[in-house]
């Protein structure tokens, strides 16, 4: 079987298209690259969606944590504490077991029966956990940045008569993002890394449709040779990391475009987050 045929059969295997059975023997390099790459679709799916939704919740949470009213501040503080203080692995397990307990027949809301079986599948349940988790981590970053917005900027905004939404949209938010961006880039990278945990933590890989590391482990178990599949998975993740650094670097340049060249903060990658 040529490599193009393998790609045609297994390229979208993780989504359920193409060949139904996974290869049983004669694992070529092409098989391993194709299937692990196919699994990468899930990592990108989880990472991109969790990051996109999480960004907005994180902004809200950061503002809530900075609020004076304890009724708003306390829940935000607790939310951030719970999700940052406990392992993501345990959060996945807990969420899965909690979602399984929902009634099988569906929940009756105002006479409409809402199906509940789909929430226990990885694409929904794990995405939800990742979304809340990254929101908590990013909120802490944004909160720190919000606290470091220069006093002069706020006074200038007041002097211009900006209040409420306009002040936030035009002064606080851009500065917050600018200050938080290097740390947020880090968060994004490690969120993508954390997506590899999904299929090892309770959420079943329906019909063996798993992520990159799921297939890497599949090959390592079948061939008893960890020296090929894991480096392939590592290679894919290095590519993702480099792409993220490039993308976030472009945004970083845009956020700092008003600053003189020498004062622009460069992105520095600090591996400080495992969940």
């Amino acid at each position, binding site marked *: 079987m040529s490599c193009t045929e393998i790609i045609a059969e297994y390229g979208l295997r993780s989504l359920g298209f193409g060949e139904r059975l996974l290869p049983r*023997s004669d*694992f070529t390099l092409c098989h391993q690259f194709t299937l692990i790459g196919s699994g990468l679709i899930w990592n990108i799916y989880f990472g991109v969606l969790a990051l996109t939704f999480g960004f907005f919740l994180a902004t809200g949470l950061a503002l809530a944590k900075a609020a004076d009213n304890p009724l708003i501040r306390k829940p935000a503080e607790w939310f951030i504490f719970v999700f940052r*203080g406990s392992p993501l692995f345990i959060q996945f397990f*807990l969420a899965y*077991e909690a979602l*399984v307990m929902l009634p099988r027949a569906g929940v009756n809301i105002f006479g409409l029966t809402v199906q509940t079986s789909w929430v226990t599948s990885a694409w929904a349940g794990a995405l939800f956990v990742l979304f809340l988790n990254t929101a908590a981590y990013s909120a802490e970053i944004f909160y720190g940045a919000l606290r470091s917005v220069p006093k002069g900027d706020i006074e200038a905004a007041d002097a211009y008569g900006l209040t409420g939404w306009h002040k936030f949209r035009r002064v606080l938010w851009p500065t917050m993002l600018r200050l938080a961006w290097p740390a947020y880039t880090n968060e994004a990278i490690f969120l993508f890394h954390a997506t*590899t945990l999904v299929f090892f933590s309770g959420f079943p890989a329906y019909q063996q449709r798993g992520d990159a*590391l799921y297939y890497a482990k599949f090959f390592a178990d079948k*061939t008893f040779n960890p020296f090929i599949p894991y480096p392939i998975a590592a290679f894919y993740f290095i590519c993702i990391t480099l792409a993220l650094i490039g993308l976030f670097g472009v945004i970083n340049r845009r956020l700092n475009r008003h600053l003189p060249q020498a004062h622009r903060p460069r992105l520095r990658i*600090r591996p400080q987050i495992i969940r």
Partner: protein
Amino acid sequence: MFATCTDPSQLEGLSWLLCYLTSGKHMLFYGSFLVVLALMLITAPVALAFGFGGALAARSHITPLRWLGKGYTAMVRGVPDIVFFLFVPVALDQGLEYIRHLWKCPPTGQPVWANGEFNVCAAAKIPLSTSPQIWHEAYGFALAVVAFSVVFGAFAANVLYGAMNAVPRAQLETAEAYGMTHRQVSRRILIPQMWTYALPGLSNLWMILIKATPLLFLLGVEDIVYWARELGSTKSQIYAYPHPDWRVWYFLGLLCYYLAMTRVSEIVLSRLTAKLSRGQATMAGEAQRKMAGGAGA
């Protein structure tokens, strides 16, 4: 454990719960918390040593050694840690068995990795298949410790490398002006001074280490996650203590355990940071000095 627990089917309410929570399996569950603590307490110093070596290598004047150090510190940036947790134990196990294979087995002329199998003779297995179960478990745990140490060593190397660069350059130049050699400068000036700069990063690493311990489950060690799944799953009437699916409660317990661990560590570490920055020429030390001065005036 208690005399009243001999026939659980006769018990009800609180006494049932008490007997249930002190059953033999639960004792193993509580014991696995000690396994987790042991992992953290062994890994932390070993990882620090790995990190120290890595950071020193990354600053070395010998080019290949510097590349090795830089490569080691860069390793964890692009690749998920879970890949290493899965890869290192298997790779290490096979590597050790391969070396023993070359040493102990009669030459067979066949390759060791072939046709989806890993073939070494019985004498090369670690531990030997005849050795008692406890050795198999100890070996598995040791592999887990090495995997954790390699990953956390790389994180620690990053932190220590940064801390070494943060020591004011003038300090090192002064030492050189006194005629100290490169090694003397490292030992007498650089290393004693870097710890205050390294402490925030290292305390962060400790929190990360706490939160990484449930990954032991992936390495096949019978840790708290294993027992929580095992004990919480539905127990039918043939068991001494039948109950429905209680896994969610067990995991809730684990979540609270981890929250408590991270919270306590946070408080202890912030006290330690305050203590270490006393009298230092850093922002934190300066703030402390002003506070003390303000209170006195």
